[in-house]
């Protein structure tokens, strides 16, 4: 594994950065938040990103993608994360898109994947339930056999990018209970399915999330993504990929908020000198810098390792998420502190980064969760 960007990757990163700087400053995210926009992102910009080929980067050519990998996708997502772009890359593209690509039947793929990769449709995946915390297999939603299909009943919480989505992939229990790995099946449910109710969840980070209620939603066998009763490993593989994507978004956010902090340290004066000349702040800034460097290496390694299908890919995914969780919060907390009073105001952007850092930390498992997982994968 080479932890250095190829020329092609450098180009992707630079293009994404330029595009995001020009069309998606933080003020765009702020305006969406202020307007209480129900989607919380811009469908038009999403389509534009689809036209640029960003959504298809990590998908096979025969599925309509560019045939590259996470190593490239993370570069685009990092650029988006820098300016808090709220487009549905984590919930929609990574969770929904990879679930379709890795598990769906050819018929489901051809019905849904082109729309997802072109940015015309969003397919979400409901990986969380009230009370499930970070445990992916703690699923209470039941799928009871009925005729040739199933009836789904249960609740899903904070379905990322799920509000207004064209469809949601719903993990449900066709057998078993509790945290059992077996007996989990993933169903694709269209947004207009009778018995499905969707409400916008208003989160601290202002991003799109939905609360879903399923009340006897009918799903035919053709709507199963993956294999009946064997959805756990598919779910984990998909969430691992989404975790890498989220980590990349976090990397962009921490780098940006840190740059904003550095420039504040160089310009804000107290006691007649720039506050960045105080050693107490210099050393803390240097600590943040180091944590970001380690987070960056971890994200690069995780993406490459998943792409290559290496045996310790899952460990590296946990490493990336754990490091990014710690580093983003550190960078954002330090930003608020070093900005002083203005850092606490809604008017300044640093608060947005702090909220995003917290939301990202508590999505797909926090650092403690991933340490546990690392230990388990390490055989202890």
């Amino acid at each position: 594994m080479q932890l250095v960007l190829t020329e092609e990757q450098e180009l992707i990163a630079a293009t994404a950065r330029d595009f995001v700087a020009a069309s998606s400053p933080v003020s765009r995210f702020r305006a969406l938040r202020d307007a209480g926009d129900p989607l919380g992102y811009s469908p038009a910009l999403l389509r534009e990103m689809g036209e640029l080929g960003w959504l298809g980067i990590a998908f096979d050519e025969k599925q309509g993608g560019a045939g590259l990998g996470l190593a490239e996708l993370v570069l685009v997502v990092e650029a988006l994360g820098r300016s808090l772009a709220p487009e549905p890359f984590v919930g929609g593209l990574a969770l929904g898109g990879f679930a379709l690509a890795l598990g769906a039947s050819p018929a489901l793929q051809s019905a849904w994947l082109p729309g997802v990769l072109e940015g015309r449709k969003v397919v979400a995946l409901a990986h969380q339930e009230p009370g499930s915390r970070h445990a992916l297999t703690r699923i209470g939603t039941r799928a009871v056999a009925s005729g040739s299909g199933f009836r789904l009943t249960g609740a899903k919480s904070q379905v990322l990018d799920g509000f207004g989505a064209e469809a949601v992939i719903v993990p449900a229990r066709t057998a078993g209970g509790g945290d059992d790995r077996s007996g989990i099946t993933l169903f694709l449910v269209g947004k207009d399915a009778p018995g499905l109710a969707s409400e916008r969840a208003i989160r601290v980070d202002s991003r799109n999330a939905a609360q879903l209620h399923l009340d006897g939603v009918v799903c035919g066998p053709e709507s199963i993504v993956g294999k009946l009763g064997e959805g756990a490993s598919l779910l984990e593989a998909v969430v691992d990929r989404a975790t890498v994507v989220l980590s990349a978004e976090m990397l962009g956010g921490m780098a940006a908020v840190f740059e904003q902090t550095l420039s504040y340290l160089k310009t804000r004066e107290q006691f007649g000198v720039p506050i960045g000349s105080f050693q107490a702040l210099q050393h803390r800034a240097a600590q943040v810098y180091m944590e970001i460097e380690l987070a960056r290496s971890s994200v690069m390694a995780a993406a490459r390792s998943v792409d290559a299908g290496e045996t310790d890919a899952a460990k590296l995914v946990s490493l990336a998420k754990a490091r990014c969780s710690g580093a983003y919060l550190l960078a954002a907390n330090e930003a608020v502190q070093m900005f002083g009073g203005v850092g606490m105001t809604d008017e300044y952007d640093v608060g947005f980064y702090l909220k995003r850092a917290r939301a990202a930390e508590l999505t797909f498992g926090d650092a403690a969760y991933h340490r546990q997982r690392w230990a388990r994968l390490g055989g202890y």
Partner: protein
Amino acid sequence: MADLETFRRETKSWLEANAPASLVGQIGNELEGTWGGRKATWPNPDAKRWLDVMAARGFTAPTWPKAYGGGGLEPAEAKVLAQLLRELRLPPPLIGFGLTMIGPTLLRFGSEEQKTLHLPRICRGEIRWCQGYSEPGAGSDLASLQTKALRDGDHFVLNGTKVWTSYADQADWIFALVRTNPTAKKQEGITFLLVDMDTPGVSVSPILLISGKSPFCETHFQDVRVPVANVVHQIDAGWTVAKALLGHERTMIADAFGGAGPRPDKKGGRSYLAELAASKLGEEQGRIADPIFRDEVAAFEMESRAFALTVQRTKDAARAGHQPGSESSMFKIYGTELNQRRYELLVRLLGPDALGWEGPGFDEADLEITREWLRSRGNTIEGGTSEVQLNILAKHVLGLPS
């Protein structure tokens, strides 16, 4: 790429044919292993044989030019060689400040005569070097050093004291910073000088550390006559050389401490640390029984992996032609603090077994961990303290104002 594969194949079979079997599984890093020198001792005669065959092939200094005893390898080939040594679980044939500090510095700043004289002897492990930077009054503020060098014809005459000189008692030559111009600005009156420790007037007295070992010394110079030809670079321009060498030193320290730790991990299985924790704390259903220590072991391993990946990223970038920056400061801080955390954790895992100092009743390996824990406290001091490295990062990498 095809060439690299050929190189890997050929080197692997050469190593398998030439590496003494008794050394397989012996660990080593930049601070542990064969140091060489005139006073070298060879507890294992195979270590000497290993040094000689590797040196003959240029593999003690793989990337140095062949003309100076190196292997003339490309960086990518050197990486393959290092990987092979790890794979075959072989220790480095030779370590020391010659290879890691003064060698690279001479390659960049040395005269042709200096390179021809010193580099081959470093590669063959014939001469052991030590570092004469710090003085009682000049630590972090190194540029305020006072060891005097007065010109007398084609010689300098040295008077003064260096302190904390690691392994001065076992070294053959010392590279020293001396003051050749007492009136210039402090950085501009310093000269970088190579001194044969056998020169009359050089004396060393070992200093005992809290770990009970005495790896460093006070080094005294009393009317020591050193040829002007031993100046590296130019008179009064030693600060430039000194700083470049510090970069190498910090990378070396980071490499040594960011790595595997006291035992290599077994391939595929549990890490050394997890194994130790399980043996000391017991297991429940395949897990370390104490959930708090289990979490700490994982946290340490993850931090260590993230650091190793960052070191790798910098090396990969350098091979791809990117200019290295002041990363060595970051590696120095992080690598040394990581090593301290490793020993803090190890000692707490041992519990009361960590309280032995010597003698019966204690396990040899546990005693070593206790001594190393104490030794590790120096990691954030030697080679420039963590605080000084943070200053460097803040100013030179982050561009924060003075």
